[in-house]
């Protein structure tokens, strides 16, 4: 599959903190999930790839353009849709006006075509009926969809979504998943999230980050496979388990290194993610 985004040796320090440490990655069309604990450097990585902050070291390209040059940065920004973690909105604007405003900032200058595009993305995020309503009168989920529409306007080739489903109720999250899955058709989407289910359901690839480094890059199935043979059931919490919790059936689900006679369970992507993080912690401690 064609590589659309490549990064090599990206590094960024904030004071004494190494926010990004030699990050290299390759993204292909489709949705790539970015998992990691708080402070792992996910948002920093997204902001670097979105050209919001420059990296101290390393380089990257988006759709063949190098943002290290003024011309290249301009081109990257033309190809970019960015939805930050807490997107701002202009509450006195209508949904249409806000997305139109963003479209102008993306330099879509033909008024008729721009308005057609704005209507298209608002339809795409299911806000066509309320496009004239002031944003301050929309629900939280609708506002999040306005922000997504703003990221999608102009049909960007590279979409960066920073925890877009935070704060949404299950129904809204489900709706958002549909939208992100749709957005991933034909374009490269990098989705930062804490929701492993989102990654499991949406992503063809997944990256796991911690302490500014990429710990894992592969398919969700490969991440899940990391936990194969390392998840088991017991009646009590197993002393050697990295994590263990009582399930709804009353038995304990343990993740870690099972005893010899353990009753093994089918691993999930979350199990693989937890073990990946834990392995690194153990290495660091050693």
């Amino acid at each position: 599959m064609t590589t659309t985004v490549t990064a090599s040796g990206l590094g960024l320090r904030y004071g004494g903190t190494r926010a990004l440490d030699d990050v290299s990655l390759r993204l292909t069309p489709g949705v790539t999930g970015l998992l990691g604990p708080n402070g792992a450097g996910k948002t920093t990585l997204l902001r670097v790839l979105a050209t919001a902050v420059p990296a101290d070291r390393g380089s990257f390209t988006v759709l063949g353009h190098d943002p290290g040059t003024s011309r290249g940065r301009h081109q990257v920004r033309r190809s970019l849709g960015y939805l930050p973690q807490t997107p701002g909105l202009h509450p006195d604007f209508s949904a249409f006006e806000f997305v139109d405003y963003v479209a102008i900032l993306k330099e879509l200058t033909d008024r008729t075509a721009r308005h057609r595009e704005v209507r298209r993305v608002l339809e795409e995020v299911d806000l066509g009926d309320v496009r004239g309503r002031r944003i301050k009168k929309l629900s939280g989920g609708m506002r999040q969809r306005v922000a997504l529409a703003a990221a999608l306007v102009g049909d960007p080739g590279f979409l960066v979504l920073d925890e877009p489903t935070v704060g949404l109720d299950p129904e809204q999250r489900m709706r958002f998943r549909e939208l992100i899955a749709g957005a991933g058709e034909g374009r490269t989407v990098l989705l930062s999230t804490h929701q492993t289910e989102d990654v499991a359901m949406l992503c063809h690839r997944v990256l796991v980050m911690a302490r500014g480094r990429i710990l894992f890059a592969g398919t969700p199935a490969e991440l899940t496979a990391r936990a194969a043979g390392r998840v088991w059931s017991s009646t009590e919490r197993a002393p050697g388990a990295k994590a263990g919790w009582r399930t709804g059936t009353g038995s304990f689900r343990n993740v870690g290194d099972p005893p010899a006679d353990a009753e093994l369970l089918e691993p999930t992507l979350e199990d693989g993610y937890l073990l990946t993080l834990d392995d690194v912690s153990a290495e660091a401690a050693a």
Partner: protein
Amino acid sequence: MSVLTETAAGTAVHEKDPRPSWAAVVALARFEARDLLRYLPVAATLLLYVGWTAWTLFHSKDGMDAYPALQDVDRDTQTGPLLLGIALFVCVNRCTLRSRRRGTDRQFDVLVMEPWRRTVAHVLSLVPFAAVTALVVLGEFTRQALRPGAVGHGSPAELAVGPLYVLLCGALGVLLARLVPTVFAAPVAVIGLVVLSVFVSAGTGGAEWSRWLSPVVDEVSGTTVLPSDLLGRPAAWHTLYLTGLILLVALGAVLASGGRGRYVQIGAAGALVLTLVGAVAQSRGVSPELAAARERASVTPQRDQSCVRRAGSTYCAFPEWTGRADDWARVVDRVRSLAGGTAARQPLLVRQRVEARYGLDGDSAIPALTTPGQVTVGTRWGGNRVPEFAVGVASVLVTGAESKGGELCDGRVVTVMWLVLGGSAQPLTDLADVRLDDSVTGSASVLAPTDGLSMSAAQTDVVRELLDRPRDEVTAAVRRNWTGLTAPGVTTARVAQLLGVKAPEGAKDCAGE
């Protein structure tokens, strides 16, 4: 330029062009201008400005409004947009800070249009408001210029001040937002600028250089409208100063928002030079040439005037007022038609006079002419000025010289006032207009282009009595008794007797009543 094109899938995508699109900046400016209109202060002050100007233009009374001097009209257009400018200053400041206030900076900073070009769009969003102001100014001026009684010349530089002021206020709002990113700064700055201007004005004693630093330098003409070439306002230099200042402020805002390109820096330096050149040039005060021209126009106006003859009298006016000779001649003919003796045929020299030595807002009285048969007329016309001129004409016909008119207090005042009012279509209105206190009874001062008269209560009563009688009857009596009526020292009682009116009891002339 970047445009959207249809893809096979039916969606719209960019055509890739790495050059920044100025069309997008213009599109953003249009968006921002529309948004500015949604701010109540902007919408209200704009409506107020346009509405008030239209109302005053189409509801102006006849009187003096019908005879505008265009060198005053151009300046009058400058104060109209004052409130609009302040509203734009505050509201464009809020618009510029919108992204910061609403937390959209993070999203917008990675979009194609850089912050400095967004700043340019905010400045450009003011252009429609300046254009509306320019249209209103133009409409205001054109409407006045088309009045049949209009005289003089307007200055394009003076007319440009209103729109430039609007642009300057808005640009300052943008700059303030880029330097002090809080919405509280703008209202505080408005108050601060007002206080600062008061202190500067007081501290410099209203010096020329400090007065002209203000964007709008309003000077109201006194009783005299000066000929255009005697105004001495450095309007063109002030326009240059304002233009430079606008560019400097706008480019300062662009620099503050990250636009550090070579052209921006060169432009800012050029704007600074323009501003300084304008500021220095506008502060030079009255030149010796202008002072000499003002002196000449005040003391020996005949050197600058041209004269025309109408019905035996001569009318001399400054070049911009020569077309008004017919209006003056009508008044002279009317007054003279009621006189008797040789006065009925006496040729007069009507001389237009100004006191220009003290500048535009000087309010000094013009001394009366001592040469017999000469009458002063001012540069204002219409309304009260018509019967006032008639008083001057009648005084000369009765006493022989304008300088003697101011000394009148005896019964000749009655004859003078009859000549003024006897031929008028609205004698009581004219009587009220020409008296300082607008009264039609009792004693009062009567206005004239130079020295006025004092009219006692008894004289007022006699004049009122005459106005109640048939005009032909009184005119015949005046002509019959002209010598007695115009004899120096004639009493009001004697005048009343000669005109067949009951003499007021106990009336004493000149010594008071």
